[in-house]
């Protein structure tokens, strides 16, 4: 830095004055208008009582006090944990396994083409707008004519038929199932890309030493994929905390509060009950939780892959 700075300055005599800061103006202005100021306003709104009209009335931390005593708020975060399981944990575990099987088992035996066709099939749900996936699954879950109940009846398991999205005991699992279906393609594709950079000699050497497929998977694949696994777990966990569209389309948080999530809860307060200050408080807490989780996972990852991916 100290070496290049003077030469850069000398060269800049040839360039018009102003430095490079000017190029940041569009991005910075946009950031201020769309992120910084709105977020500041949101924090302020969370300290007020505001019904969407008139002037917000400052009430200090009352919304937060009310929030921490509100069972719906706690339910929404508990459900978030279920969705982290469905969007981050299950797809990561399943994705690693599928990617390893496709890369290290199917491809050598049946050719790279068959493994890339299979990969494309796993990826396909990822291309759908979540709203479309929601409509599709809502139709399949439909209690009277939906495919799931129809098929259960066809194989004589009609007793297991449920009003999947309408029963508070099953709705959350039904939503989780959709999320798993959506997420698997993402993890499979990323892990396969990660495996393609692993030196095949590692696998060959292990094979010569008599390591079976599962040993190779445990010792080589899981270790080599650590950076990818970290990235996937971070991005999908953050996405799971923020999940909104599938809930909006499939259940609207119901029945009751059985599938409510923080994002939907704040939306509901903003635009359905117009308790804007309260909704803003929920959104602020969510923003805080997301940031803490993201930064925490990021620190954890950099500590664990130190000198490995730099």
């Amino acid at each position: 830095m100290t070496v290049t700075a003077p030469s850069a300055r000398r060269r800049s005599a040839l360039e018009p004055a102003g430095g490079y800061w000017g190029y940041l103006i569009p991005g910075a202005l946009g950031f201020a208008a769309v992120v910084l100021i709105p977020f500041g306003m949101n924090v302020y709104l969370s300290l007020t009582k505001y019904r969407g009209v008139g002037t917000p009335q400052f009430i200090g931390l009352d919304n937060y006090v009310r929030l921490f005593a509100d069972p719906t708020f706690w339910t929404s975060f508990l459900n978030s944990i279920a969705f982290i399981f469905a969007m981050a944990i299950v797809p990561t575990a399943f994705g690693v396994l599928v990617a390893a099987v496709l890369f290290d088992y199917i491809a050598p035996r049946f050719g790279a083409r068959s493994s890339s066709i299979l990969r494309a099939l796993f990826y396909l749900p990822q291309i759908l707008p979540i709203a479309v996936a929601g409509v599709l699954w809502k139709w399949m879950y439909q209690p009277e004519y939906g495919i799931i109940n129809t098929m259960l009846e066809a194989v004589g398991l009609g007793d297991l038929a449920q009003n999947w999205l309408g029963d508070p005991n099953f709705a959350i699992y039904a939503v989780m199932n959709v999320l798993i279906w959506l997420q698997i393609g993402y993890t499979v594709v990323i892990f396969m890309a990660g495996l393609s950079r692993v030196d095949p000699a590692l696998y060959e050497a292990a094979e010569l030493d008599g390591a079976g497929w599962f040993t190779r998977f445990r010792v080589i694949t899981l270790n080599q994929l650590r950076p990818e696994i970290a990235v996937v777990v971070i991005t999908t966990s953050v996405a799971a905390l923020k999940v909104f569209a599938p809930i909006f389309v499939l259940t609207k948080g119901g029945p009751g509060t059985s599938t409510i999530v923080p994002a939907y809860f704040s939306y509901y307060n903003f635009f359905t009950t117009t308790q804007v200050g309260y909704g803003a408080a929920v959104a602020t807490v969510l923003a805080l939780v997301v940031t803490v989780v993201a930064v925490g996972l990021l620190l954890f990852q950099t500590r664990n892959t130190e000198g490995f991916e730099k």
Partner: protein
Amino acid sequence: MTVTAPTGAAPELIDPKAARKARARVDRTRHRRRGVSGWVVLIVVAAIAILMIFPFWLALINAFKPAPEYIANGPISVPTSLDFSALIKFWTGIDFNQKLVNSVIISGSVALIAAAISLLSAFAIGIGKIKGRVWVLAVFMLAFTIPQEALVYPLYILTRNLGLYDTKLGVIIILSVLQSAFGTYMLASVLGSFPTEVLEAARIDGASRRQVLWHIVFPLTRPTLGVLVTFFFIWTWNDFFLPLVLLPSSANQTVSVALGALSGQYTSDPTALAAASLAGILPALVFFLIFQRTLMRGVNLGAIK
């Protein structure tokens, strides 16, 4: 002479290249042995893969199935005759053409504007190496980690005050800024490793910053920009939350929002939702087929930052 001949032949016998080739040949024949377990694994994986795309198949066959046939034979049977009425009813019922046009306008504009903003910011950070660039990047990162719920109500207030509420322009500006944050992050790391000799040569020739950006950096990063534009387009196409709040009128709605807002309607007609799903799947499938390579490349690019 007689001594050198064998020594000359010996290295040939253990020529590493030939040996590696031979080993590879052996490997390949060994790998080719599929065995019963090989087929079992293939069948299991293929069965799961088919289960994954089964919903697509269901949407396809049932969108064209006459409703009485669905009631009689259920969702699995392949339709005996093609009935377009459910699809047409859905398409004209919500004016799907209008939604497609809206989505194309919004996604296309966002993709181009966001890529342009990303390039400018990344130019300052990656090429200009401005002071405190790590902090600038960290602040930009907030834009894509922060939940949009924490921005939405103020954005709703601000767009109303500025006359941008329920306009495509308002959503285009907001989504461009949000997506450019990710683009800046990605492009800055790409530009950070931009070959310095090229830049220096241009500067010695008296190129201004703008000329460097426009005539050197832009053409050389076009492939990465292509990936970004593709991603921004598809993300915007799929985006739900902000368009849902900021574009309430049906004339401005996007495909995603129009489908997501269907809830409750059409549920009495068993094939209507299949038709709606198919209408939503089709454009996504078209993009996938067009952009498949870019997407797969980009997924990797985005994952390993």
